[in-house]
């Protein structure tokens, strides 16, 4: 993955293995905890609701411990860089706006936040002229509006702008 221009390592594979194994263990523990609360035994009328999930949680915990140990034993070449700073920046440049977009959908509706999202990408990553940015970002939302609201009659989240234009 590192090809010279990627910069230095942001964090190692080992760290990433630890984090993921840790998250798995925590999830497994939560599943087991709730299964025990519901009853994970054999009752008079058969298995209790927590019976099946309890063992699922148990296996998750056991596997994550083994994966953690396997991660700790990574040496030399195999414990390289999980992601370098350069590519990590690229990933965050996509991930953060996507998360912001998902948050904005509830407030502005999918069409307005979608247009802002496309505009952000085109301007900051693609360095396009403003008129192109405006044309494609707004055009894209209009096309989606026609496809979903008009042709397929699938209502998508709408915000203040659609209310103002009486489109909802």
């Amino acid at each position, binding site marked *: 993955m590192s090809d010279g221009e990627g910069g230095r390592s942001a964090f190692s*594979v080992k760290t*990433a*293995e630890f984090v*993921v194994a840790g998250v*798995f263990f925590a*999830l*497994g523990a*939560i*599943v087991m905890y*709730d*299964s025990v609360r519901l009853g994970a035994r*054999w009752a008079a009328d*058969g*298995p209790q*609701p927590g*019976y*099946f*999930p309890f063992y*699922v*949680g148990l*296996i*998750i915990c056991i*596997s*994550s411990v083994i*994966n953690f140990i*396997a991660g700790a034993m990574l040496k030399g070449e195999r414990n390289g860089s*999980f*992601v370098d700073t350069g*590519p*990590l920046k*690229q*990933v965050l*440049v*996509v*991930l953060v706006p*996507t*998360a912001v*977009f*998902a948050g904005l*959908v*509830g407030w502005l509706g*999918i069409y307005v936040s*979608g247009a802002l*999202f*496309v505009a*952000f*990408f*085109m301007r900051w*990553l*693609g360095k*396009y002229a403003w008129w192109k940015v405006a044309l*494609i970002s707004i055009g*894209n939302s209009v096309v*989606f509006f026609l496809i*979903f609201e008009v042709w*397929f*009659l*699938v209502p*998508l*989240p709408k915000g203040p702008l659609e209310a103002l234009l009486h489109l909802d």
Partner: protein
Amino acid sequence: MKELESLLYGFLVVLTWKNLIFMFVGILLGVIIGVLPGLGAANGVAILLPLTFSLAQQPGGTTTAIILLSCIYWGALFGGAITSILFNIPGEPWSVATTFDGYPLAQLGRAGAALTAAFTSSFFGALVGVLVITFLSPVIAEFALEFGAPEFFSVYLLTFCAFIGMSKEPPFKTLASMMLGFALAAVGTDPVTGTLRLTFGTERLLTGFDFLVAVIGLFGIGEILLTIEEGLEFKGTTARIDMKIVLRTWKELPRYWLTSLRSAAVGCFMGIVPGGATPASFMSYGIARRFSRTGSKFGTGELEGVVAPETAAHAAGTSALLPMITLGVPGSPTAAVLLGGLLIWGLQPGPLLFVEQKDFVWGLIASMYLGNIAGLIVVLTCVPLFAAIMRVPFSVVAPIIDIICAIGAYTVNNALFDVWMMVVFGLAGYMLKKLSYPLAPMVLALVLGHSAEASFRQAMLVSQGDMAVFFANSLVGTLTTLAIVLLFWPLVSWLWAKARRASA
């Protein structure tokens, strides 16, 4: 020949204008999905599934709906080859092996021949897969009609153990990923007693995690993050396909008949057991390299190196539907999504489909023949158009794909919460993929979690908690034993390798 009669009946069901139009639409969408990075067959089908809810309500609508969705699948199988050959970027995981010889061919100026070979062998692989489905599935379905809860559970067990035994990823990572799928499936209402599980008092979790949202996040957003990490520029060669190149390549292809047949067999096998198209394509590339007379030249632009993986991938992708329609056990993530669709439309996948839903089953099988013919025609004629899509800069395509994913996730339950979950699954998919946790077992577990748990508990109820029920008769005993062998296969092969190293 009862099967041929049923198949003819299936063609009668399919041959309406409406179905044929949906078939072409599906193929076109599928190829586009296959070409675009970040949109794959599994999440493409997942995104479009909610749009078929109303379609499936009409009489005969479920058949039209499955034709649309399965044709997206075929289209994506075809489309993956285009980007592999022209851009050295596999549009789908199963076309990675196609890049090995496809891209060198394109650099030698033989892109047209490579594409023709890829499409033709894809078509041949699919044809073999459909033939297997046509003649084998009624037999398996009839056999499976006798199945009770223990038998079904042992089939599920076999499916999941096969993932551990046959995957290239570390076994405990496969296990962790699979069990997380089961845990996510358990969230919500317990299917047997109606008790709420793992909801921790939040209303949002009452209905559980929807597998469609997980698929869109894991495969869609996760894939975009992986793509962007490797850079934003696509550099590719151009291709023109005309009739002359097609005919010349077709004249050359019969030379590789043995490779084709072998690859098709590998593909069908890997598709029916849940190995999937991706390992099938690698395996058959490896076998072809070992057995071919020009094996040493593989990797420098051999047509045979394109034929082998493409045939196997398409055969596997197609035959993955066999266990789905006969047993209700999908052989690939995309087949899992299709199975989820069947459940949403109110059809119970499994052997009873062949008795109760003849129109649907044979319509689907007949549409596989026609869909792949349509696919071959579409891809052979429209390559420049699809290659042009790849030239749209990623800074424009990426946000639009993200928005499409968000719309898909939202329309599943009309819930904004699902859009946020999609982003979480996307980040998870990116991390897991990079650490070689396989995602397919998680998706399958998420789809099959309820059925697997229900059949396990029913079997346990019948036997009063005695595990011996899974060895009660020769059928269920064989399935269970086979499952256990596959489960411990990584351990066996590890010990074997160790013993050999010690003696050497």
